[in-house]
Each structure stands twice: as C-alpha cells, then as structure tokens.
C-alpha cells in the first residue's frame, strides 16, 4: 500500500513521516506541493513544519498549493488524509476539518513528550487503538491552540469526533484539551502532536505513534479501497 507524504516549501517532518509509513509496512511516496498528481497513493500525510514560512497564517497559503486541490477533492471522496501539526493547520484552512489553530495561549513554543488519551477509534487513522488508551508522543508547536465556537465544539463531542485529548497538562491552551479531531466520515484526521516521531525506540519516547500508520493500513485492507497502488 502506498502512503503519500507531501512536501511543501518549509515542511520539516516529511522525512520522518515517510519513514514512519515505511516502518508500518507501507511504501512511502513523496508528493510535491506544486504537482497536482497524487501518483495513485492510497492515503496521504500532510507533515509538520512551517509551510510557506507560516506567512499570513499557518497553513493559509499551503491550502492553495496545486497538490492540495487534488487532496481536497480526494478527501471528499474518502481518501484517508492525516494532517500532523502544520498539516492539521492546513486541513483546517482547507475547511476539511472545523475550527482553527491559534497562537499558544502562553505564547511559548512547546516541545516535549506529551500524554494523550485516545477517544474516537472508528477513524481510518485510529482504529488500531482502544478507546481511552493513553499514549505518549512528542508535541512541538507554537500555534497549536485549537479553537472553535461552542456550537462546533459541542457537535464534535456529540458526534464522537475528538480523536485524542491532552492529559497530564494541556501544552497550548486548546479548548477542551483537544489534541486531534476527525471529519464526519472518519477519513480525515488532524492531530497537533507528532505520531511520526514516536515510531522507534532509538529516537522516540514510545512506539505509540506507529498506531496511526498501522491503523490506516488496516483500514485500507479492510475496505479494499486501494486507489490503484500496488499492495
């Protein structure tokens, strides 16, 4: 199965995301921001970093990259898409996910290992976890404070679309401790902390991040919805 990883100008974690996909057992396919061709990938990861220098707002310019036009269409058609950190910001700017990510409430960049509690496990990217499972993955952001109006927050909770919440301390002031959410269909997931940095004992605080990548492989195998990539 082929997992595409997009590189925007200013992406930082595309290499680690591709590596995580390979460790999970997928073929990693590098996608370029200026190329609208998705090269037949079965899923897409939008990695962390500072696309287009975070100019204007984080993710605001990346949302209009040629590759994003294709990803937005494909995501509406069910393609699994995971946005990590800056990728989450891009998904919100593209209106594939509700809400927005704003400056950390305390104004400091936060870089630490962070405990999360997984909630929704019926998504393409979290089906390998158990509800309530506590996982440890790195968080590193300056603008990770998730905000939305009360109605949107209530709807996310009522529809079971919060995929993970911060526990043992909220690193950025996100409303209701939300670390990640999904869309109605469960194929698009955004998460602020970095699962791709927790896939190997040598470099990560745990192997918990691997679950996101193995989840999508399982979901693709179950659904039989391969987009044409080789298995």
């Amino acid at each position: 199965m082929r997992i595409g990883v997009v590189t925007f100008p200013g992406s930082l974690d595309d290499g680690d995301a591709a590596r995580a996909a390979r460790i999970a057992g997928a073929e990693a396919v590098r996608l370029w921001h200026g190329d609208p061709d998705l090269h037949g990938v079965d899923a897409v990861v939008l990695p962390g970093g500072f696309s287009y220098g975070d100019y204007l707002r984080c993710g605001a310019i990346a949302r209009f990259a040629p590759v994003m036009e294709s990803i937005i269409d494909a995501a509406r058609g069910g393609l699994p898409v995971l946005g990590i950190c800056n990728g989450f910001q891009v998904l919100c700017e593209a209106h594939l996910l509700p809400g927005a990510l704003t400056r950390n409430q305390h104004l400091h960049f936060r870089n630490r290992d962070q405990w999360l509690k997984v909630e929704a496990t019926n998504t393409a990217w979290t089906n390998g976890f158990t509800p309530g499972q506590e996982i440890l993955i790195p968080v590193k952001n300056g603008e990770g404070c998730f905000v939305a109006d009360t109605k949107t927050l209530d709807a996310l909770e009522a529809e079971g679309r919060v995929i993970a919440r911060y526990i043992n301390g909220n690193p950025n002031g996100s409303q209701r401790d939300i670390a990640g959410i999904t869309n109605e269909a469960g194929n698009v997931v955004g998460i602020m902390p970095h699962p791709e940095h927790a896939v190997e004992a040598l470099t990560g605080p745990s192997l918990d991040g691997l679950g996101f990548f193995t989840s999508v492989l399982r979901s693709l195998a179950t659904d039989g919805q391969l987009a044409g990539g080789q298995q």
Partner: protein
Amino acid sequence: MARVVVDVMLKPEILDPQGQAVANALPRLGVTDVSSVRIGRRIEIDFTGEPDLDRAREIADKLLANPVIEDFEIRVESAAAEVA
C-alpha cells in the same frame, strides 16, 4: 495607484495572547490606564487599474482572513491618505 486596504482582526471572542502580552508590558512604560490591547493585521492591495472592492472582498474572504477566527474590513485608500 488603486489601493485597497484590508484590516484583519481576531473576532472579539477569540483570545489574543499577543495583545495581552503587549498590554502587560505597558505598565513598564508608566501607562496604567489601558484596559485591553488587541493586535490585527493591515494588508495593502494595489490593483493595476481601478480599485476593485468585490475582488478585494473575495481575496480577503478566501485567503487574507480565516472566517473561523477573524473578521475583516476593506476600504479604498484615497491618494491623499497615501501621502500621509
């Protein structure tokens, strides 16, 4: 030159930690009668021809402001104001 100015501000209900940090620094300047500071962004768009407010509104709505967290106002800037 045909210039349209777009002012983008966080919606009133969205916390502005940058503005708060500035407000908290004001007493160090001896300023004690300020209750709130909020920070926004001013964007100047120069059209090659006549200023097109509808186009500018579309640009602001799609790209310059995020309607989830921000409001914007647009206006045509007069030549006289440009000098100032």
